[in-house]
């Protein structure tokens, strides 16, 4: 797949403090990409560089086939973590304004926005003021503002925080829809289960440095500890199974976890188990959760 974004050795300093240090990664076109990291890691700085609010001190950002420039703002959608709208302005007028600064004509903006209002069943919000809406409702309005100009590249910073499960599902569904239509989504969140659910690839930033990158599967494989979960029937004597290659790390009534000391393939594990006096009902390799990987990586 072609890359839509190539971040090449980007650094950013505030005073003498390093906010980002030699960050490099690529984002594949049409993917949902997770930008992860603890608070203060430099995610917002990186996002602000992508939205051209800040300029990098070193390195460059390639968008498509050229260096990122102000002309690209029309192709980028952005939902910042710190949400904000004009409180006293009518929602309809406000969204038209935001759509027009993203390059849409008045007529186009109005038509598209009306479609979105119908889709989200919020037609009566058009003439309301933002201050009359709840936070969750405002978030829906902001989501529309971020995508109304149909950006090729969409940056969503904690898009689901503060949303109830119904609205979370609605926004999740729209993110998937956008992906299916060919948009690339850069998704920044602390909620690892959301990342596992929708992201194809991730990068993990800590203290301004990139500490992990890759597609979800390969990252998990990199962190796997060669633990296998085996379901069984009857009785299992763990002393019999344990030898110089294997140890039992956890044992229950219906399953146990086996850790191989050396890195070996699941097939080899299975072959070994078959030679033991066990009735096997299930077998799977245990991969670490993203949450575990996250904690392990940033506390190293």
């Amino acid at each position, binding site marked *: 797949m072609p890359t839509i974004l190539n971040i090449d050795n980007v650094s950013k300093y505030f005073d003498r403090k390093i906010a980002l240090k030699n960050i490099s990664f690529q984002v594949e076109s049409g993917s949902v990409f997770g930008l992860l990291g603890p608070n203060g890691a430099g995610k917002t700085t990186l996002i602000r560089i992508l939205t051209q*609010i800040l300029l990098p001190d070193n390195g460059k950002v390639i968008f498509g086939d050229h260096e990122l420039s102000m002309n690209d703002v029309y192709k980028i959608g952005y939902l*910042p973590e710190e*949400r*904000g709208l004009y409180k006293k302005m009518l929602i309809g007028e406000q969204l038209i304004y935001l759509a027009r600064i993203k390059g849409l004509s008045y007529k186009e903006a109005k038509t598209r926005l009306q479609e979105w209002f119908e889709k989200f069943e919020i037609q009566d919000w058009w003439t309301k003021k933002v201050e009359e809406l709840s936070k969750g409702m405002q978030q829906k309005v902001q989501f529309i503002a971020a995508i109304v100009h149909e950006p090729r590249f969409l940056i969503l910073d904690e898009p689901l925080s503060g949303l109830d499960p119904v609205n979370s599902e609605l926004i999740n569904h729209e993110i998937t829809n956008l992906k299916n239509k060919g948009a690339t989504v850069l998704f920044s969140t602390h909620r690892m289960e959301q990342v596992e659910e929708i992201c194809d690839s991730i990068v993990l930033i800590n203290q301004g440095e990139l500490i992990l990158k890759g597609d979800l599967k390969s990252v998990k494989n990199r962190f796997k500890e060669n633990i296998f979960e085996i379901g069984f029937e009857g009785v299992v004597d763990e002393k019999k199974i344990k030898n110089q290659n294997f140890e039992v790390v956890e044992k229950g009534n219906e399953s146990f976890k086996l850790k191989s000391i050396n890195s070996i393939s699941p097939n080899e594990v299975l072959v070994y188990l078959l030679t033991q006096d066990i009735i096997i009902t299930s077998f799977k390799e245990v991969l670490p959760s993203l949450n575990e990987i996250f904690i392990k990586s940033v506390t190293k």
Partner: protein
Amino acid sequence: MNKIWLVFQREYLSRVKNKAFWLITLLAPIGIILLAFLPVMINLFTNDKQVIAVVDESSLFSNVFVDGSNTKFKMESTALEDLKKNYTTKGYTSILVIPKINLNEQPNLLYYSKNPLGLQLKTQILTQINQKIVELKLEQAKLDPSFAKNLQQNANIESKILDKEGEKSGSSTIGTIIGYASGLIIYIVLLVYGSMVMQGVLEEKNSRIVEILISSIKPFELMIGKILGIAFVGLTQFAVWIALTIFGFLIAGLLLSPLLLQNLKTSPSATTQISNLSTSNAISSNTEAIDLETLTLISEVQNLNFNLIFTSFIIYFLGGYLLYASLFAAIGSAVNNEKEASGLILPVMMPIIISFMFLFSVTQNPNGDLAFWLSMIPFSSPIIMLSRIPFGVPWWQITISILILFSSFVVFTYLAAKIYRVGILSYGSKPKLKDLWKWMTN
């Protein structure tokens, strides 16, 4: 450019569509008209008639007093002590006692009433008494009393400006009034619209919408769009005010003129009030004197170059506003709330306040060195130059002053934009002047 236009539209329309804007815009001229006409109206519509018993102990002043629309004088021969007891039952509101007059001494009159003697009535009585005393003195000196009319001198100075084009009339009284008023208006306008810009920036910063905006617009475009939008809000307000004020004065003039004319015929004292000229001239024919002064004022008004005053008002409003607005925007971007802004805003407000403090001395000496230099310094020129223009200022001075003002606007907007760019994304602790300097020079 297109984006500045979009920001401009939003800033302009969101304010002009606001009900509060129209409330202030429409109420202000009504207030001005009411203030301007209040004294006349009060005078016309008060039924506060005064009937004054005149006790003339020397019997020299029987034909002196002329009744006005609200004042009547009646000669009274009752003894003063009795009169004091029953003057109200006799229908009087007060007693005026003119003691025996010794023409070589200063006369001392007495006035008895429930209320103290008002300034207007006092002037009216003294004018007429003094006039009579002069006549008596002339009689004593065996001079023709009609000579008194010629005695009165109302010297007048007409100021003429000599320049290459020849001589022109230069005004002083009206010039001072208009100069001071223009300076005062610009002073208020700079503060009001400057703060409006600051609040607008703070609103965007605090509502956090600024992050969305500057991911699509350059901070500079956002700042300039906002500043220009609010400038046009100001211009719209002026236009409405001027139209409404002219309209209001026309209507009020039409309504009041029959009443005024009627009053002029019946009361000479009304003339003094309406022309707002209190003449304490002791010597006769004060109406003629008033006419002369009024004529001078009217000719001063006619001589004023209103086109120049108006055009320069707009130019200096725009120049001064643009210069200060960018600084107000920079401060709004740097702070987290209006309370924090108060410390940083002082250095910006000081030149405005100092210019205002010099305003009076400049109108007193509009062509002095102080006036010249203050109208060249961009931070004071909008207020000071405007106050000088009614007196006549050489073209080269106006041109240089405007050039300096607009080039400073460009320089300061550039520097303010640097602060603004960093400031709008800085939350947390209040920045110090040192921080602003660092943002500006980075």
